[in-house]
């Protein structure tokens, strides 16, 4: 699937919305994962790498399903929860899309692109938060 490219004023507005949303997502991650240690650091790095490099949200979510289904997975519930959280960000992506241009809320490629950005942000916050909790 080809990526949607935001340009001009729309791109600027989107960056602004994502900046604000990033801080809100950080608070969400901290509240959601408080007191939880998550998987080993290398697995968190793996998730972060996948999120950074994959161009489709579905592949990132599929990765979490794959991790949860692995034989001998130490914490399948963690991966299930992460997958659920990442899927849930689609709703926020639709809201943000609607704020850019009302018609955009029907534009699936645009919503997918915003969803991808939110997922990347979420995973960045998640990795940092869990590494921090494991160390402190």
């Amino acid at each position: 699937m080809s990526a949607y490219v935001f340009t001009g004023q729309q791109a600027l507005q989107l960056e602004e919305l994502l900046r604000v949303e990033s801080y809100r997502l950080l608070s969400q991650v901290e509240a959601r994962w408080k007191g939880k240690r998550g998987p080993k650091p290398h697995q968190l790095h793996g998730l972060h790498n996948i999120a950074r490099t994959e161009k489709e949200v579905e592949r990132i979510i599929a990765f979490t399903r794959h991790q949860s289904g692995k034989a001998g997975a130490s914490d399948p519930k963690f991966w299930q929860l992460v997958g659920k959280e990442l899927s849930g960000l689609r709703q926020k992506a639709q809201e943000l899309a609607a704020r850019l241009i009302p018609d955009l809320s029907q534009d699936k490629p645009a919503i997918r692109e915003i969803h991808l950005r939110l997922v990347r942000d979420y995973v960045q916050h998640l990795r940092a938060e869990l590494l921090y909790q494991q160390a402190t």
Partner: protein
Amino acid sequence: MNTQIQNLEQLRAERAYRLALDRALDRRSDKLYNDKTLIGLAEQARTRLKDTQMRHLERLACSTDRLADLFDYIKGQVGKDKEGKGWNKGGFGTVLLNALRKLDGEARTVLTAVRQDSGHQGPEDALRQIHLALCREYVRHLTAHYFYKEAIGGG
């Protein structure tokens, strides 16, 4: 004609907001410079961080538009320090993180005052922007104290 007048009024109000904000941030920055926690952190940083790490923190704080990036960076650095010899030594990273988070309260005070002074509400995410600006000032002062102490060979 009325639209032109409204636009001019809007521009004046935004300018008044901007000026009031700059003044308020300057005052807060000067207060932060002598903050005891900040000075204590700078002392601790000298036995925990390398010069390059300090510079990197400063560069990140001054270049990012996202508060979350700054907090994630510090958390990540603490997380990497498994041996507790650097960012995680004696809870250094946690104290710094908490100090930066607490600036949220200062940001609210600044925003209230600026809105009163200028009669303008400011942008939608004014609070986040002010919080980020204060975090930048905090990290700049931290870096300055760090390198000053190093240069005079204190401690």
